[in-house]
Each structure stands twice: as structure tokens, then as C-alpha cells.
């Protein structure tokens, strides 16, 4: 079914008015370019058949309702209040597009304004944009923005940032040939002594993830001094779920703050769509990438909202735009807004507390198993790395047989760490789930 409304007689009437005998007469494409055969694709199936087939296909995937998962590393199994999916499923939201026509889009515009405000309030920053694709592209855009603001080219990143995000930064910066320098990890955090050496007058920024890829907290305030002394900017990537408990980066000297918003009401969905959070100090607003909504008034003085500062954007500025982004992640930003609204002042902190206590309990139980020990001795949020007695891959396979996804094998990403794995524990994992993991590990290493 191609979802076409016009019948044959509608089409005939339309052709008559246009003054042609067939639709083909309207198609102004030279015949040598025309495809002379039907597309070699499957024939149409009905809804009944499609649904049955897709359900069966979906069930060949192991989903987190049927596995106990301790896998994080950038995609987290957090609680999604039922109200989030219900609200973003309102088709007045999901079948609209970018609110270029403000008077016909106040719903989306007010929502974005509220979202921007929520992001500012949890991060402690002055301004936020309407979203980026994900944390990875947001990190890359932050590097570009810092380079524009400072007029400098060297971008310094910590190796404690998620390796996938660092890879995306390198891709984004490769065309402009902006060099990316990495600071090694020392005991689970960026090595500040090496940062001091690398940071110079040509450095645009230092970028840090806090909590970092290993779940550890970074000494952001101390970094702020090192970075600002050299006139560079401090870019901090956050986990928004941690911000009910952790000090907002705006209070630790951050100039640009970004993060992965997936934890806020967005399903893991095999990697996307997610949500790139992006906020900064007010003085840098005009260098920000992406859409921004502002409040204004109508002809009767009533409060309303519209897109603003569009002269930064590609559809106006073309090759001189602050970014090439057009379509963003509006609907997942709406999900995050509904999430923050329902969790509110106390809920976000409560989720944070649950993550911290669950993760701490899991780490202490796992460290009690022979051959396992914490890899780092630093405060952490909801993830932690442990040393394993042998390569984690065999262990993970055995856990999988028991319907447990045990975590991430770190040996490929950080060979320097030896046999190690990364374990993520959210508020969705119960004490029972953690005990189950611990006894499964014990059994697995016995056999």
C-alpha cells in the first residue's frame, strides 16, 4: 500500500485540468536515463503479514526485558516513566517539522524553550540550544566552537572520554585538519601533570567527560584553573542523570557543557536516535551551533516563542554558518523535557542516589570475588571498571548463557589496562539482580 489518496478518477480529472493525457507527459526526464524495469525489491506485504514478520524478527534480538544487563558505555538502561512515551506519541508533536512558522508551532517552540531552560538549570549554564544529534557530534561541535572563539587550532581531549566519542571528534575535525591531542589516563582520570605540559598558547580547549568513560569523577575545578590560565576553554561532557547529585559544571568553571541525553526517557534502541545536550556561557551564544528558541511577544503583547539568532545557521549563513546541522533531535529533546518535568527537583536526585548506591554495592560485591578487584581508586557514579583474573570475553559468554549481559570488555579499547571490564548499574538493577550477577560470576570462574 503506497498511502496514496487519489483514485484513478481523481487522477484523470487532475490530468484534464493540467492539460496532459498521462502523468508520463509531465516527467521531464530523458528516456536514456529512465529505469526500464521495475525495481528489484520485495513486493508489497499487508499490515498483518508485516507485523507478524517484524515481531518474529524483533524476538530474535535479546532485549533488556529478558536479560539482566550491566552494559552501559554510552547507552543506559534507565527507568522511562510511562508518561514520556505517551506524550511524545502525540502526533501533533511527532508529525510536525522544524517550527519555522512560529504561530503554527507554539507547542513545539514553548517545549524547546522549556527544554533549553531545564538543561541550563541542571548544568548550571546560561544558555542551551534545541539539541544536537548525540553526545558524540555535540563533542565535535564543542571543539569547533572553542576553536572559533579562541581563534586557536589545537584541541586537547582526555583519553578518559568514551573512545567512540573521541573517534567522532577526529572524523569531524579531519577535514579542517585541526589536531587532536590526547591526555593519558592516570588512576581512572585525566593525568593533570601531562595536561599542564600540553596546554599552551595555541590550545583552543580541553575536553573532559565527568563522570568519565570509566564512571570516575574528574577534578574539573582543578582543570578549570589549568585551562583558563592559558586562555583556553573548558569543555565538560556530563551524564545528565548524575546532575541531581553532582555539582553542576557551571559551578566548576565550564565554558561549554554537553552530554548524552539518552538516559532521560529515551530507549537504548540499538544506538539511536539519542540526544546531544549543548549549553554554554552566555557570552558564547552567538558561536553556538544548532537551533535556539527565544521568547518574544505578539502584536497584542502576549508572550510567545520563535526560532532566534538564525543568522548563525546554514539556511541563512551557508558556508559561514556555525555548523551544518539542520534536522536535529527535537522529539528526543521533548522526551527529555517530559522526563525532567515528571522527575522534577527530587526525582532526578533520587535516581542519582539509587545509581550510586547500586553501583557501589555491585563494585564491593564483585571485588570480593577471587581475582577481581577495582581497577581504579576514585569516586564514581554508576559505572566502574574491574580487573578480571583472565580475559573477560570468556566470562561474558558464560554470563550470557545465564541471560546476563555482564558488561563491556575493555581490552580492545584500552589494551594498556590489561584484563578489565566496565560494569554499569542503574536504578533499574535491583539488589537481587546484582546478587545474581555475583553468583553467576562465581560459578562461571569455577567451571
Amino acid at each position, binding site marked *: 500500500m*503506497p*498511502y496514496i*489518496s487519489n483514485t484513478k478518477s481523481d487522477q484523470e480529472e487532475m490530468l484534464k*485540468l493540467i492539460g496532459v493525457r498521462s502523468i508520463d507527459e509531465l*516527467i521531464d526526464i530523458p528516456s536514456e536515463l529512465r*529505469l526500464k524495469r*521495475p525495481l528489484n525489491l520485495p*513486493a508489497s506485504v499487508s*499490515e498483518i503479514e*508485516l507485523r507478524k514478520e517484524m515481531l518474529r*524478527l*524483533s*524476538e530474535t*534480538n*535479546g532485549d*533488556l526485558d529478558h536479560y539482566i544487563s550491566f*552494559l552501559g558505555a*554510552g*547507552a543506559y538502561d534507565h527507568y522511562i516513566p510511562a508518561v514520556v512515551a505517551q*506524550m511524545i506519541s502525540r502526533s*501533533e508533536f511527532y508529525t*510536525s*517539522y522544524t517550527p519555522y512558522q*512560529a*504561530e503554527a*508551532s507554539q507547542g513545539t517552540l*514553548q517545549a524547546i*524553550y*522549556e527544554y533549553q531552560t531545564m538543561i541550563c*538549570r541542571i548544568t548550571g549554564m546560561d544558555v542551551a540550544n534545541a539539541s544536537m*544529534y548525540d553526545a*558524540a557530534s555535540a563533542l565535535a561541535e564543542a571543539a569547533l566552537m572553542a576553536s572559533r572563539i579562541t581563534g586557536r587550532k589545537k584541541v586537547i581531549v582526555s583519553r578518559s572520554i568514551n573512545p567512540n566519542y573521541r573517534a567522532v571528534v577526529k*572524523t*569531524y575535525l*579531519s577535514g*579542517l585538519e585541526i589536531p587532536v591531542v590526547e591526555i593519558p589516563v592516570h588512576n581512572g582520570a585525566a593525568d593533570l601533570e601531562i595536561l599542564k605540559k600540553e596546554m599552551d598558547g595555541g590550545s583552543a580547549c580541553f575536553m573532559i567527560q565527568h563522570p568519565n568513560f570509566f564512571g570516575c569523577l574528574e577534578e574539573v575545578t582543578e582543570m578549570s584553573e589549568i585551562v583558563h590560565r592559558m586562555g583556553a576553554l573548558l569543555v565538560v561532557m556530563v551524564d545528565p542523570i548524575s546532575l541531581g547529585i553532582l*555539582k553542576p559544571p557551571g559551578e566548576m568553571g565550564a565554558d561549554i557543557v554537553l552530554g548524552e541525553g539518552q538516559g532521560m526517557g529515551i530507549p*537504548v534502541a540499538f*544506538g*539511536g536516535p539519542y540526544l546531544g545536550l549543548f549549553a554554554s556561557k552566555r557570552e558564547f551564544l552567538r558561536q553556538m551551533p544548532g537551533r535556539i528558541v527565544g*521568547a*518574544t*511577544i505578539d502584536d497584542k503583547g502576549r508572550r510567545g516563542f520563535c526560532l*532566534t539568532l538564525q*543568522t548563525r545557521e546554514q539556511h541563512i549563513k551557508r*558556508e559561514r554558518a556555525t555548523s551544518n546541522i539542520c*534536522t*536535529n*533531535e*527535537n*522529539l528526543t529533546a521533548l522526551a527529555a*523535557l517530559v522526563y525532567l*518535568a515528571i522527575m*522534577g527537583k527530587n526525582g532526578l536526585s533520587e535516581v542519582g*542516589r539509587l545509581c*550510586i*548506591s547500586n553501583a557501589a554495592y555491585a563494585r564491593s560485591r564483585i571485588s570480593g570475588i577471587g581475582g577481581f578487584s577495582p581497577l581504579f581508586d576514585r*569516586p564514581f557514579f554508576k559505572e566502574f571498571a574491574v580487573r578480571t583474573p583472565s580475559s573477560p570475553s570468556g566470562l561474558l559468554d558464560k554470563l*550470557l548463557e545465564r541471560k546476563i549481559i555482564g558488561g563491556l570488555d575493555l581490552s580492545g579499547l584500552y589494551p594498556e589496562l590489561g584484563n578489565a571490564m566496565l560494569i554499569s548499574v542503574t*536504578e533499574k538493577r535491583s539488589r537481587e539482580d546484582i546478587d545474581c550477577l555475583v553468583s553467576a560470576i562465581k560459578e562461571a570462574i569455577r567451571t
Partner: protein
Amino acid sequence: MDNRLIFEKGSIGRKGYSLPANDIEESTIEDLIPERFRRKNRPGLPELSELDVVRHFTSLSHRNYAIDTTFYPLGSCTMKYNPKINEEIAGLPGFTMIHPLQPETISQGALRIMFELEGYLKEISGLDKVSLQPSAGAQGELAGMLMIRAYHKKMGNPRKTVIIPDSAHGTNPASATLAGYEVREVKSDKEGLVDIEDLKKVLDKDCAALMLTNPNTLGLFEREIRTISGLVHETGALLYMDGANLNALLGICRPGDMGFDLVHFNLHKTFSTPHGGGGPGSGPIGVKKHLAPFLPIPTIEKDGERLYLDFNRPESIGKLQAFYGNFAILVRAYSYIRIVGKHGLNNISINAILNANYIRKRLELEFFIPFNRACMHEFVLSAKRLKAKGIHAWDLAKRLIDYGFHPPTVYFPLIVEEAMMIEPTETESKETLDQFCDAMIAIAREADQDPELIKKAPHTRDIGRLDEVRAARNLDVCFSPTNRLF
């Protein structure tokens, strides 16, 4: 009508969430997180009941025009109907609740959808290999530009410029610049097509690629595409297609057969995935063989029946996303192609072309239509005749809102004065198109009788014409109860 912001609602101590009790008593947060890392006050979020939240967002939703409520002929955006079955399928737990890093052995269903969707896109476009990784069209463009760079680098010289027509989308020059290229413009000729003589002038050995949208943003097919392709390839440059307008070509002709080396797709346009109020979209990139080694990592490969992610591709431009693409969007596009089927796809383009031409013909007497000949899936009219009465395309757009229509794209492409770009899509019926044309003609009459009515529109919404200049001048992008402008 309650227009309060969410921060102006709620009450201290009100609660809408439901979390399990903390059954871990071994240690406290204060023991685990040193004071220097802890925030002093809870974040400034509202305190609301679930009902408060539901009322707030339901009422906001009522203040949007959307495809499900109104005709939405936003040119270049392909605002077609978004079938509901795709939403239902994308919401299955076996698709939403799977972790991107979980073992491949328990992700075969997801990989199969992606692998097959790549195959469908290859066949539709006539290309050899596809990556689904880019998050949206602009990221697809960036991927394409970086691949072009990698290709030329391998040939010994990355080259310096990318040629882009003056009618192109703004993302094209922005993406080329981000990839480190200088942008050179090629003019449109009297017919609204690439000026071949001008192209010859700007093409040289420094040119890395020509970026073209076909049909172009005027809704016109670049008939001389084979000539263009010959000229571009003669200099060793590559030919890139912005696939924004692919809805006009399904089963009719294929970019690969026209000579394009690489193309990005917009699944949220051609393949019906919802626009979400501005995203998420998905912008896969497809290439001919000679560019395949440069595709983003990982690619999805097949070994017998087993599908796997291949990270071992030394010439790849690298990663654009942490994982593999906007999977939940890919599921929708896959479902759509399956339910529409091969013949249905061709019907889509044919009907999109018919609908656009019908509106064009119905409006051609009342409005000036530059390049007025058979169009593809969209066309551009000019509101310049109304200028004498002080009315601009922007005013006409606002008045359309009163008639219950979302306005078309305005002031784009830049080469048409007072442009209005109309793309009805195939899913709209003749009745809807007639109602829209009637409204356009009625407004043109109003311009004679009561121009102020148009200049002050809209009149029927719960908000009047918004002051966008003020928004940029007195910037208020983050709500503060103490620093209110109102």
C-alpha cells in the same frame, strides 16, 4: 487558555514519579561522593503530578500544526503522511530495548533489518554500498564530503574546492566548508538549471566535487545531468547528489545511472519517518564501488547466514556516531518500504509529480511562476506581484495559517524573489489540494480588497504575529522568574 510555562506550575512536595525504595544500606552518598563533587542545592526543576505533566504537554500539542491535523506543503521537506504501522513496529521491545554493544549473537534481527535496508537503498539509487550511520541529511553530506576528501587524498591531492549551485540547500555549502573545502558557486541558467557554460568556467583541477540536488530545489530535473557528469569526471572530480528530492525519482530513474558517485538519503523525507518537530531524522550515504573503502565504520557484513559489524576498514573516514545510526528510524523506513513494495514506490513518485503539477496549474494565473513548465514533486512560485500592495511571501504564509494550512517554505531557493516552495507529496487528496488552491486564490483577492488583513495575519490562532526581530534583539532563551521581559 492556560499559557503558563512548566516552571510556573506545580507545588512544593508534589510528586509524579515512581521509583523503588533504596534497599542498599551499606553506605551513604556522603561516604561515596566527596563533598567537592556534590551539588549544594537540588536542581531548579518543577514539582508536578503526573496529571499536571499530561495536561501541560497535551495542551502544548494542541498549539501545533502537524501532518496529522493539516496539509503541510513545506517544500524540500517532503511532509508526507507517516503511516501508523511503522510507529507500532518501531515500538516493539525487541527493537527499543536492545543495547548497541550487546553481543552480535543476540542482535541478529537488528542487523538483518539494517543489512536489508542498505540493500533496498542500493537498488533504489543504483549505488554499490550504503552506510546507515549519519543521523540526518547534513551529517550524510559531511560523511560524503569527507569521503571525497579521502578519495582525492589517496589519488595524491585532496583538492581545494567544491562547486555548488546558487539554488542549493544551505547545508551543502556548510558541509563542504566543514570538510575543509572552499565553496564556489555555479549559476542557474534561464531555465532554472545548472548553467553549463558557467560550470565549465568554475571547473578546474582544484575542484574536488560538484554537489547537486536533482531534481533541483526549483523542482526541475537537471536534464543535462549526463553532460554535467561528463564534464565533472573529466577533471577527475566527483559528483555528489543531495538526495533531499528523491521522492520524485523512485523507480523512475536512479542517481547511480545518471553518473552520481555518491548520494545521501533523507529517510525522514522520502521514506516517511516522522519529522518529530525537527528530528530525529536519518541520512544514510550511498556510494559507487570506488568510494566504498572510505565509508564510515563499522559496516555491516555477511558471513554465510551470520551478520557482523566490520570495524577493520583502514581507509574509512572513521565514525560519525557513537554507534550505527538512528536505528529506530531505520526500522520505520524498512517497514515502509516493505509495506509499500516495489510497485508502490514507483506510484509514490508518479503521484507526487501529479499533485505538484496540479497545484502549479491551478495557481499559475493568480501567481507568478518562474520557470513555469512541468515540474517534478514540487515547484516554486513567486509572491512578487503582491509587493505593490506591500504584501510579502511572509505575509501570505501567515494568512494561510488562518485558512488552516501550514505554509509552504518561503524565501527559498534564494534565486527566486519572494519565493514560496510548494511540495504537496503523494499522500494528499485532490480535495485537499483544491482547498489549498482555493485559499491561495482567496488570499490573492484579499490582497486587492483588504491588504491589512494579510499583513496582520494570523488572526485565528491563540497567538498573533510574533515579533521575531524583538526576539533576536532582547534575547531571552532561558526562563528566569526574576528577569522577566513580560
